[in-house]
């Protein structure tokens, strides 16, 4: 008995990060965090709110900038919409969900682009390696430079050189990142052109951020200060 209790206490610190990773606390977020975008979320997917992030015109009206930043699901969690049509002319974008059948969000084996050209997808703007903010707005001439390379759709993190291939659903092409870049699942309203975020396919940079109570639960490491860049924000790098 003592052994069992002692053992449980001993391994507790190892278990909680795993629970966090699985999104165990997501459902308590809306009551615990003032940064949550929707206060009374009843239609969300396991705690994620359905939230209007942009209108398709917002992103189309940006000249030569295929990237549009928004916050989701907390106000200090930057994500970005990416229009592959504006980036390198790809339409009817569709990729395998790299997180299919993992974590608590089921379904979505295939992730489809939204919008008139079915070319708009969304990703987290925070690297899952060590939590650096990703410079998706910097369009680069080579995938070896920090920023987003339009030809290869590779997003290169400035900290430790992780490279995510966005057209393949954020899978890691190079560098030390331990898992794919989380994608935001989108819905599109054809009548109004509104784009809604409904969930993320996997946890953001939060794997082992140890949280002992649901009150501590912010998805990102709260020690890191993120801010959502103003749109349009593109530059050449």
């Amino acid at each position, binding site marked *: 008995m003592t052994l069992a209790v002692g053992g449980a206490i001993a391994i507790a610190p190892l278990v909680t990060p795993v629970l966090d990773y699985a999104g165990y606390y997501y459902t308590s977020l809306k009551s615990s965090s003032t940064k949550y975008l929707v206060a009374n979320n009843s239609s969300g997917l396991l705690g994620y709110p359905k939230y209007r992030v942009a209108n398709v015109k917002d992103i189309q009206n940006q000249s030569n900038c295929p990237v549009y930043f928004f916050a989701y699901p907390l106000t200090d969690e930057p994500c970005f919409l990416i229009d592959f049509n504006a980036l390198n002319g790809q339409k009817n974008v569709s990729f395998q969900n790299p997180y299919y059948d993992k974590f608590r969000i089921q379904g979505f084996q295939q992730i489809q682009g939204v919008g008139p050209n079915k070319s708009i997808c969304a990703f987290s703007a925070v690297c899952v390696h*060590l939590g650096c903010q990703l410079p998706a707005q910097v369009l680069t001439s080579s995938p070896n430079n920090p920023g987003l390379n339009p030809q290869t759709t590779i997003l290169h993190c*400035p*900290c430790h050189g992780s490279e995510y291939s966005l057209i393949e659903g954020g899978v890691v092409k190079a560098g030390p990142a331990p898992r794919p870049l989380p994608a935001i699942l989108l819905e599109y309203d054809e009548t109004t052109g509104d784009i809604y975020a409904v969930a993320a396919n996997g946890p953001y940079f939060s794997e082992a951020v140890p949280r002992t109570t649901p009150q501590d639960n912010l998805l990102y490491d709260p*020690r*890191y*200060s993120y801010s959502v860049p103003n749109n349009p924000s593109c530059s050449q790098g």
Partner: protein
Amino acid sequence: MKVTDDRGKGVLDRILKWLDDRIGIYGHTIRPAPKYAYRLDYWLGSFVLASFILEVVTGALLALYYVPADPYKSTVYLIQQVPFGALLFSVHSWGAYAMVFFLLVHMTRNFVVGAYRKPREIMWIVGAALAGLTLTEAFIGYSLPYNLISWTATTTGLNLFTYMPFGLSVLISQFTIVPTLPGLTQDVALVDRFFVFHWIVGGLIMLFVALHLYIFEKHGITPPLTKEEAPELLDEYGERLERDPDWKLQPLMRTFGIILMTFLMAIGGVVLLASLVPFDIGVQGGQLTYLKPEYNAALAAQTPPIPDWYFLFVYFFYKSVNPVDASWIFLGWTAVTVLFPFIDQYVFRHKAPHPVMRPAAIALGTGFIVSFIVNSVWAYETPGRDIGPIGVEVDAVIFAVSFLTLFPLLKFVLQPRALKGYEPIVGGGVKVRKLNFMPGMSQFRIMNRVLQLSFLGLLSAVVYLTLQSTLVLIFHFPSWQLYSGALIGTDMLAAGTLIGLLVFFGGDRR
């Protein structure tokens, strides 16, 4: 213990003797060192201590003007407006580099001569803890100016603990997750906490330094390198201390002289360097500016955050392999360093301190040093770019090559050669080293004259520089601070050399 008989020659010695008669300080608080120890490499720890004291003093002065709620602006204010603020900032920053550098040199030297061996295992571990605390202190301090690179690098560095095993991630987050207080942003609150920890860790360093020095005084200086199993404590060489002129215990005056010399050298060197190469401070037409921009998240996303030079080797691992493996490598590296005395004793089973008698330790240590340098340079050359598994593979090759070449070389070539014709010391026996160079009378006179001349030259330089720096300090102009720093630094270096002359050449030379 009769270690201090008839050595009361200097004024200091008499004062200390007086104290010893009343409170008993010899034998555990301070003890005289034997003659052979009057070489620079026996006093490397003193350089670390000197730079630590310099850091405490300059840090306390800087803290008077540092406002953690507005870290960047107060740093800029300090540099531009506060008298001698720029000099203090520069000295504190360079002093931190100097402390880490001296620490690495001190640690390497003690590794090479096997000074961690029984009974000095705990002392090595305390020293390794000091190294860890110093690096922590440097890491925290790096964040305090809150500039673009330093803040991004520090928070990213903190994030790497999220992959640490054994609940280390929880431990670090307990220290660094700051409660949201109304009206305060998370960021600034974390800077505030860093500032507090900068003091706490500094206090811990002081505590561990005290422990380190206590053990040092208990053990005394290490005996010279031997190629056979021999006592590792001076106290066990009673007869030899009496009879071997090379082992003759020196007056404490001389000990204090050499410590004063190392302090003047280390502090003077740092002050001079900090004045000649101001740390991140630009000088334009008498106007001082801080060269690093303030942290802002949007700009940070486009700037590769680079850690300071002593953390480049850790940065390297995290660029090379996935963060979980990198954490294990980092922890493994630390564990081997901390536990090395026991590895040496129970795994390698080395019997004597001389490097040729410790082939496995030397091979492993060489692998450590070479890979530290290779990793640091490689990581520095590839900011923001991934290195890939080739990085740790190269490290593995370095260790393998180091073992495959050095181990057999030391064990089967150098060791037998060294042992052949080697006269073992009989416990307490006398072995007078023969001088290869015996100067004749005229040469002796010339040497004496040269020493006298350099003594007088240095003395006048010290007097002149002291006067001039005092004048500059009195008639203070904001833009003169770096000039006065250069004067003070040169002055201290000259004074250090002067005392060095006295320590190494002065006194009786029997």
